């Protein structure tokens, strides 16, 4: 018997808002799906576009990128720079045929514990319906016996 598909979701979050927000979800005892692996970075501005590609290559089926709302960045403008980067990168990925529906961008503040739970649940359900992202994963093993 095969196990039902459980998606792996990688979340790149900023230290100051979304990580604290996810913490609040826990301390508020809000239950949410456990498919998400949270990676804490100093700021969304620090999230190199290559990290997303690496996550897919290492087996992520979905990705969440989340940080402070515009105007709330701990470093004043990191999230504005990140936003510009995603505006370009998302188009490029789509042009190259990478499934951008598997990447969710969001702003979750330190006070939005409930929003975090909702976001993770929604993304997990969505990715579960899409199935595993084998297309990209296969590249990593291509030609390796």
């Amino acid at each position: 018997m095969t196990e039902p598909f459980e998606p792996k979701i990688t979340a790149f979050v900023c230290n100051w808002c979304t990580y604290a927000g996810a913490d609040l979800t826990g301390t508020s005892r809000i239950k949410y799906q456990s498919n998400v692996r949270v990676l804490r970075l100093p700021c969304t501005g620090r999230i190199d576009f290559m990290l997303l590609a690496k996550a897919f290559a290492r087996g992520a089926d979905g990705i969440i990128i989340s940080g402070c709302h515009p105007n709330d960045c701990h470093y004043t403008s990191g999230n504005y720079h990140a936003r510009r980067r995603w505006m370009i990168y998302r188009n490029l990925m789509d042009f190259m045929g990478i499934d951008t529906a598997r990447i969710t961008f969001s702003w979750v503040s330190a006070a939005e514990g409930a929003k975090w739970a909702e976001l993770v649940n929604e993304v997990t359900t969505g990715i579960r319906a899409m199935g595993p992202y084998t297309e990209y994963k296969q590249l990593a093993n291509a030609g390796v016996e």
Partner: protein
Amino acid sequence: MELREKAKQLLESGEVKAVIGYEPGTQGARRPAFASSAARTGRLGFEGEQNLASYVTRKEVKRLGRVAVAARPPVLRALLQLMAERQIKEQEVLPLVLDADGQVQELATAQAMEEHLALSPQQIPARDRELMDRLGGMTRQERWDFWQGELSRCIKCYACRNSCPMCYCEHCTMDCNRPQWVPVPSHALGNLEYHMVRAMHLAGRCVECGDCGRACPVGIPIHLLTFNAEESVHAQFGQRAGASSKLDYALSTFRPDDKETFIR
């Protein structure tokens, strides 16, 4: 005045130390040519495809002093973008262009270059436009298959990087192995990641000369990737690389009211 005459005059007067243009190569091809003395200007011409701006950032060319460059619009854009990125100074290059009467004209200042560029609209070649539109009309899966098919031929020779006037970094991400961002061999994943990185690093900086695609020995239309990145910068942030010598890099600036549709 013809280019050869002009080059001769400039070199004889010592105004420039070299003139970069094109000359006939083998099998009817045109190749870049450097004239460093008046005696060597006899074969120079304007007709050629390579972007000559990729030479002006090289150490061995910079060491010469001021150089004149036969400059078609993409070359002019590249020179302006290099000025905006503070890689060359206005007084280090002297672009030569043909004016409406077929006369060679010197564009000594960035302002003169900008004004000359404004005369002709920037357009990507019809063939590339058509392919981009065709790709745009495909489903995501078809685009993926298209690029996987194309990139499977990539041999990672880095000709696209080396031909690019904007790829002047002494330490390229591709050459770094701590960390090794992109697998070195021409492997399916490494090829995809390499071209993704190249396009992202050229977003907002690509002058759309298409030299990367021409340099590709296996004929992958990789210039479309940087064109795509450049076009999304233009569409979303309203600026084009090479339009001015005082352009801010699109991805290191921002506007609080940048409009996107996908962040929840």
